[in-house]
C-alpha cells in the first residue's frame, strides 16, 4: 500500500515537473510608439499601403538585396515559420522593405523575392519615403562604404515586426528567435484576431 502511494506521488511529481518545464506561451504586447500606415511601391511598381493588409497578420522586415547573411536568413526563417503554421499561414503576409532604394528597384526586388516560396511583398520608393517608414518603426540604418566590389553595405536594425489584423505592432522578433518561436507567436496573434 505504502509502495503504491509512493509510486503515485512520484508519478504526480514527475508530471507536474514536466508541466512546469513547459514554457509559458509568448505574450503579445502593445507598442503605441511604433508603427503606422505608409505608402510605398511594391515589386510590380504599384502603390502599396499597409492598410491594404487589414485583416491579415503582417510580418514587416527591413533589409536589402545585397545583404549577405542576416536578410536572407531572416526571410528564410520566416519561410520556415510559414511551413510550421500550415493552413493558417494564409492569414499572414510578409513585407520586405528595402533600405537600399538606390540599387533595389521594383524589378530587382521582384527577382530577389521570387526565390522565397511564401510570396513576400517587396517594397521600395524614394529614399525620403523609406526614411519616413523607418522613423515610424524606429529602425536605424547606416550606409557604410566598404571599398570592395560591393561598394557599400548597411548596418541596420534586425527586428521583424509582427503587426495584427488592425495594423498595430504586437511583437518584435529578434535575430535569435527561431522559426518555431515565430510560428507560436503568430498562432497566438491569429487566435486573437
Amino acid at each position, binding site marked *: 500500500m505504502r509502495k503504491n502511494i509512493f509510486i503515485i506521488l512520484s508519478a504526480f511529481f514527475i508530471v507536474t515537473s514536466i508541466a512546469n518545464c513547459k514554457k509559458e506561451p509568448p505574450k503579445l504586447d502593445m507598442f503605441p510608439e511604433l508603427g503606422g500606415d505608409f505608402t510605398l511601391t511594391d515589386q510590380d511598381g504599384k502603390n502599396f499601403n499597409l492598410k491594404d493588409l487589414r485583416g491579415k497578420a503582417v510580418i514587416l522586415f527591413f533589409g536589402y538585396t545585397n545583404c549577405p547573411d*542576416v536578410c536572407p536568413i531572416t526571410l528564410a526563417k520566416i519561410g520556415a515559420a510559414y511551413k510550421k503554421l500550415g493552413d493558417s499561414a494564409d492569414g499572414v503576409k510578409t513585407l520586405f522593405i528595402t533600405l537600399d532604394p538606390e540599387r533595389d528597384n521594383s524589378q530587382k526586388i521582384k*527577382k530577389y523575392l*521570387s526565390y522565397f516560396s511564401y510570396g513576400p511583398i517587396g517594397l521600395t520608393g524614394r529614399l525620403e519615403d523609406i526614411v519616413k517608414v523607418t522613423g515610424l518603426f524606429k529602425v536605424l540604418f547606416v550606409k557604410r562604404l566598404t571599398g570592395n566590389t560591393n561598394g557599400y*553595405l548597411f548596418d541596420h536594425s*534586425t527586428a521583424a515586426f509582427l503587426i495584427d489584423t488592425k495594423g498595430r505592432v504586437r511583437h518584435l522578433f529578434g535575430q535569435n528567435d*527561431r522559426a518555431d518561436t515565430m510560428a507560436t507567436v503568430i498562432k497566438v496573434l491569429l487566435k486573437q484576431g
Partner: protein
Amino acid sequence: MKKSIQHMGTFFLIATFIFIFESCNKKKESLKIENAWVTESIPGSGINAAYMKITNLSDKDETLLSIDCDNFETAEFHSMTEEGGVMKMNQMDSVLIKPGAAMVFEPGGAHIMLLKSKHDLKAGQKISLNLHFQNAGIKSLTGDVKKIEDEAK
C-alpha cells in the same frame, strides 16, 4: 613457459615498432575543417555566404589569411556584432585561431562573404574553396551548395 614469454616479448616488440612506424608515417593534421557549405544563389543578389568550422589542432597560433573560389571575384571575412538591436558587419583582414580553438562561420554570425559570382549556384552542387593559412599553407576543400531556406531553423 619460457618459450611463450619469449614469444610474447617478440610480439610486443613488433607491435611497438609498428606503432612507432605508423605514428611517424601519419602526419598529424594541424587543422580540422568541418561542415563547409555555401548558400544557393538568390536571383538578383550576386552575393553568397560560406560557412564552416575550422579547428586549430596544433600548438601554435594559426591565421586564416584569405579564401579564393573560382566562381567568385573575391571573398571576405565578416564578423557580426549587435549593438542596441542594430547588426553591424565588420570586415576582418584575417582570422586568428588560437591553439585548440575553433572559428565558426555560421548563419547569423561571422561569415565568409563571396562577392560577384560568375555563375549562379544551385543546391546540390559542389563547390571547391581554397583556404590560405599562415602555417598550414593552402587547404583545398569541397563545400555543398544548400538552400538557405532548408538551413533556417
